């Protein structure tokens, strides 16, 4: 269940030109599954900023965020020791049960972080985890080594071919054999994965949110089982229930 908590910044450093890793100290007990997110209050901004959880331990939370506007740029300027007001344990994360023994994780750009915590849990569950991490160029790559160090067989794709396989994540999917998949990334990538996937799987979606905990209906989407809130029933939806808005 959602909790409102104060966290203290342990680390806030750039991984690439626009991706930052924020490590926070505080009570993470409200977070129950990979793929969930937190909603961060920033001084001078009315709406909170939702950021997916990359990884968490008992007392440390790792978030990886992209600077896309004045809010995240403001966040990127915050220093160690400063405090943040978070709503934690938001959303419905990934369900590990249907993974099978060889799950495939497919992440694109800012969609990579939540898959890291997921990979960790799938590996400790005893799965053989394969990860495809897609980026535009070599400069944008982050966390490839971290996935490998976890023990995930990791493939990199870049659109310009400056590193790994040239092309899109779907190009790397072709020859792989897997029991199930989990994906997170920009919607065009999710659609391509939806078409390319040979198995069932779960998708994590991003949408502009008002509250982040189901109150405002700002992030509703249609599914085969009716309207769902990305912030509450989502952000993770199963392949079978997705209805793509054209």
């Amino acid at each position, binding site marked *: *269940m*959602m909790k*409102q908590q104060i966290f203290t910044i342990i680390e806030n450093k750039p991984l690439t030109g626009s991706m930052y890793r924020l490590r926070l100290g505080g009570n993470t007990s409200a977070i129950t599954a990979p793929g969930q997110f937190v909603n961060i*209050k920033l001084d001078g*901004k*009315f*709406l*909170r900023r939702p950021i997916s959880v990359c990884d968490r331990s008992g007392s440390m939370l790792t978030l990886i965020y992209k600077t896309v506007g004045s*809010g995240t740029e403001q966040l990127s300027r915050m220093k160690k020791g400063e405090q943040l007001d978070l*709503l934690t344990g938001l959303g419905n994360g990934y369900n590990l049960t249907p993974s099978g023994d060889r799950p495939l994780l497919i992440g694109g750009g800012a969609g990579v972080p939540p898959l890291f915590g997921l990979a960790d849990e799938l590996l400790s569950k005893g799965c053989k985890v394969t990860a495809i991490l897609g980026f535009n160029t070599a400069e944008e790559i982050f966390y490839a080594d971290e996935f490998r160090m976890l023990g995930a067989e990791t493939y990199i794709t870049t659109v310009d071919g400056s590193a790994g396989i040239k092309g899109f994540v779907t190009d790397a999917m072709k020859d792989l054999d897997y029991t199930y998949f989990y994906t997170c990334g920009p919607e065009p990538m999710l659609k391509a994965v939806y078409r390319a996937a040979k198995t069932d799987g779960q998708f994590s979606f991003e*949408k*502009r*949110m*008002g*509250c982040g*905990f*189901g*109150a*405002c*209906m*700002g*992030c*509703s*989407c*249609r599914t085969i089982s009716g*309207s769902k809130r990305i912030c509450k029933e989502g952000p993770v939806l199963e392949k079978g229930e997705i209805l793509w*808005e054209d």
Partner: protein
Amino acid sequence: MGRLSVNLCGIELDNPIIPASGTFGYGYEFAELYDINVLGSFSCKGTTLQPRFGNKTPRIAEAPSGMLNSVGLQNPGVDAVISEELPKLAECFRKPMIANVSGFSIEEYAAVCEKLGKEPQVGWLEVNISCPNVHGGGMSFGTDPEMAAAVTKAVKAVTNKPVIMKLSPNVTDITAVARACEDAGADGLSLINTLMAMRIDLRTRKPLLANVTGGLSGPAVFPVALRMVWQVTHAVSIPVIGMGGISCAEDVLEMMMAGAAAVEIGAANLTDPFVCPKIIAELPAVMDRYGINELRDLK
């Protein structure tokens, strides 16, 4: 009666704090966060005759000291509200609730109010004639005094519960609409709904909201809301629920000094889900600071 208690159309409230429609769902989800019986009451999601998915997304945009929304009355429809939502609410809320109703025709307003008016959990009907986010309906009823009066009459004819008309701020003279509703038999008024607004995405150079325009709420609109509540409470004699950007105990007092009998808290619930119980807890100390014994004295 405690220091915070107020009277709204003949029903006593323990305090004047009422989460506003569209920011509190049908209540029971907030009951997981705190005991919602601490509230004076709450106003449920705007309910229509048929189920509505609402507008396309994005439906939300940031603004200075506020936010824009263009949800567009997403709701499961009045029958599902009665059969599914109200029973869930009954398990966690013992007080009368405010049923917020929207429609696209006078007949629809009447039909929905007739059904919800029969529900024992419903203490008041709040008739939204001011939604800026739906076309061919919503706000148009709230910008024309005659239309507003017609809706009021039609609703009053089908229910004995107090009828509170929710007014639009997007008008030249809100007192004209307020008087028309009072003359048509309204038991109370609530204002303001959101100010029609817009944002543009500098990257795409297109409107940020799929619906192009949306409603501005949050502290940014508080001084406009206060002015309209002042004007309306000086123009009519029925009670007025003041709303628009209220986010702390001081704002509650200022709005009641403008003449409001109670207040609704909207956007603030979305950035701080615990803001209503916090305000209720802070009110006595803030009242002491300004020498206010009982909130009723401010009326």
